[in-house]
C-alpha cells in the first residue's frame, strides 16, 4: 500500500469518527425521549413510550413560547431583510473611507458577542423608558441578523449586470419599473434565502434574547429554563422536534443552494452565496 493510500484511509477514518462524535450525543437525546424512565436517560432502557411527546403537547407554556418565537421571527424578518438590502445597495455605490466606515459599523454586530448586543439594547432603550419584551427582542436580534442579510445581498449584487439597469433607464423606464422588473427578480433567490436565514437565526437565538425578553419567553428561553430545572424527558421530546424541523430546513436550504449551482454548470468558481455568512445559524446561536 502506498503512503498516499494510507493517508487517505487514515483521513477517511478520522472524518467518520468526527461524524460519530457529532451525531452520537444527538442520538442519545432522541433515544432518551422515547425511554419510559422518569429521568431523561437512555440507559437503563425501560421500554418504548410516546408519553413524553404527549406531555409536551399539553404544556401551555410551550405553545406560548412557540407563539412568541414565531412573532419575534416575523418581526426580525420584516426588519432585517429590508435593512440588509438597503445597506447592500448603498455599499455597492460607496467608495473609499466612507464605505470602509459604514461597512465596519454594519458588520461589527457579527463580531460582537451576543450578550453584549442584548445588554447595549437594554441599556439604550431604558433611557426611553422601554423595558424588555418582544419589541426589544426584535430590535436586538435584528441588529446582527441584518448584517448577515447584508452580506448575502452584497455577494449577489457583486455579480449584477448593471448594463441591464442602465439600458432600461435609458429607454425611459421609471425607477419603480426598474426595481420591479429587473432588481427584484434578480434578487429574489437571495431574498428568500435571507428570509430563511433570518428566521432560523431568530428562532434559535438565546444569548442576545436573554437580556431583552422581559417576560416574553421565546422558545429557546423556555427550553433553557426547562433544561436547567424541570428535568423530564419531555425536554428531549422538544429537542427531537426541534432537530427534526432543523433537518427539514437544512435539507431544503442545501437543496435550493445546489439547485442554484446546477443551473449554471461550468461556473463552479462563482458560488451563489458566501457560505460563511449564510450557513451560520446563531452567531450566538442560540
Amino acid at each position: 500500500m502506498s503512503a498516499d493510500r494510507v493517508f487517505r484511509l487514515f483521513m477517511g477514518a478520522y472524518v467518520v469518527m468526527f461524524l460519530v462524535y457529532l451525531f452520537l450525543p444527538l442520538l442519545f437525546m432522541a433515544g432518551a425521549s422515547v425511554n419510559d424512565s422518569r429521568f431523561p436517560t437512555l440507559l437503563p432502557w425501560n421500554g418504548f413510550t410516546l408519553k413524553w411527546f404527549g406531555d409536551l403537547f399539553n404544556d401551555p407554556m410551550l405553545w406560548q413560547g412557540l407563539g412568541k418565537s414565531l412573532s419575534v421571527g416575523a418581526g426580525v424578518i420584516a426588519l432585517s431583510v429590508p435593512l440588509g438590502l438597503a445597506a447592500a445597495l448603498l455599499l455597492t455605490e460607496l467608495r473609499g473611507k466612507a464605505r470602509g466606515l459604514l461597512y465596519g459599523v454594519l458588520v461589527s454586530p457579527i463580531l460582537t458577542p451576543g450578550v453584549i448586543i442584548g445588554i447595549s439594547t437594554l441599556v439604550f432603550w431604558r433611557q426611553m423608558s422601554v423595558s424588555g419584551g418582544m419589541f426589544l427582542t426584535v430590535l436586538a436580534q435584528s441588529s446582527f441578523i441584518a448584517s448577515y442579510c447584508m452580506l448575502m445581498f452584497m455577494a449577489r449584487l457583486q455579480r449584477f449586470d448593471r448594463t441591464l439597469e442602465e439600458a432600461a433607464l435609458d429607454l425611459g423606464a421609471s425607477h419603480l419599473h426598474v426595481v420591479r422588473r429587473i432588481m427584484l427578480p434578480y434578487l429574489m433567490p437571495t431574498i428568500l434565502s435571507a428570509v430563511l436565514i433570518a428566521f432560523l437565526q431568530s428562532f434559535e437565538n438565546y444569548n442576545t434574547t436573554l437580556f431583552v425578553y422581559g417576560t416574553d419567553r421565546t422558545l429557546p428561553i423556555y427550553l433553557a429554563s426547562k433544561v436547567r430545572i424541570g428535568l423530564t424527558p419531555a425536554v428531549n421530546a422538544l429537542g427531537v422536534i426541534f432537530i427534526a424541523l432543523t433537518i427539514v430546513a437544512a435539507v431544503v436550504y442545501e437543496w435550493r443552494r445546489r439547485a442554484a449551482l446546477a443551473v449554471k454548470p461550468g461556473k463552479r468558481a462563482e458560488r451563489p452565496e458566501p457560505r460563511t455568512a449564510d450557513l451560520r445559524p446563531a452567531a450566538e446561536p442560540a
Partner: protein
Amino acid sequence: MKGVLSSVRRRYGGVATSLILVSCGLWALGLVVLPQLMMIDYSFRPSLPPAKQGGPEDIYTLANYAALYGNPLNLAIFLKTIWSSALVTATALVVCYPVAFFLARMAVGRTAGLLFIALVIPYWINEILRTFSWLLILARNGFVNTVLLDLGLTQEPIIFLGTTPAILVGMVYAYVLFMVFPIYNSLESLDPHQIEAARDLGAPWWRIHWRIAIPHAKPGIAVGCIMTFMLAAGTYAIPAILGGPKSRWFTEVIYSQFFEALNWNRGAAYAFILLIMCLGFIALMMRLFRVNLAEVTR
C-alpha cells in the same frame, strides 16, 4: 459624498434613495452605535437611585472597572474565561482542520455532498440542545458513568457536571462546526495542482500542509478562530447548563450584575471589558494571519 449620493439617486430614484439612507442611518445609529455608546457611558457612572441621577453625585468614574480588579473571585473568573476560550479555540482548530481539508480536497461527488449535509445539520441545531445532549452524557447517572460502572472502571459515579472541563467539552462540541466551514471555504479555492506539484517533487504530506495548504487556509483559520473564541467567551447557555456555582463563566457574572445585584452600571462595565477582550482577540488574529476585515466577514 455628493457624487455618491447623486449616483445612488440616478440608480434608484429619489424616493428609494431617501428610504435607503434613512434605513442605513437608523440601523447604524439606532441599533449599533448609540446603544454601544450608551452602554459605555453607563459603565463610567455610579449606580444611583433615580432621584439622584443627573445630580452632583452622577459623575464619570472608573469605580465600576476598579470593582472587577478589586474582586479576586470575579477577576479569576474573567481570566479563566479568556484562557478557557483560547483553549476551546485551539482544540477546535486542531480537531477541525483535517475534516475541513478532507471535505474541501479529498471528498468527491456524492460523498462530498452527503458529508456536507451531514455537517450542516448539527451546525443548525440549537446551542441549548447540543449542550443538553452532553448533560445526558455527563450526568451522575448519565451515559459515561453507566458505562464506567458497568465495566468496573470506577466504583462511584464521577461528578463531571459543575466542573470547568465539562463546560469546555460542551463548548468544543457546540462550536466545532464554526471552525470547519470557514476553513473549508478557504481550502476550496486552493489549486489542486499546487499539491500535486509538491507531491511530485517529493514533499512529504506534512510539509504539503505546512507550506501550502495551511498558508492558503489562513483567512479561514482566522475567521474560525475569531468566531469560536467570541462564541465561547460570550456564551451564557453552555456554562449555565453544564456548569455550577464553582465553574462560573464571566457572562454569568455580568448577568448577575444586571438581574440579581441590579447594578446595571457595573454590569455595563463588565460587558465592555468582555467586548474589549473580544476585539483584542480579533485584532490579534487579523495581525497574526495578516487578513483584513473584508476577508474576515466575506
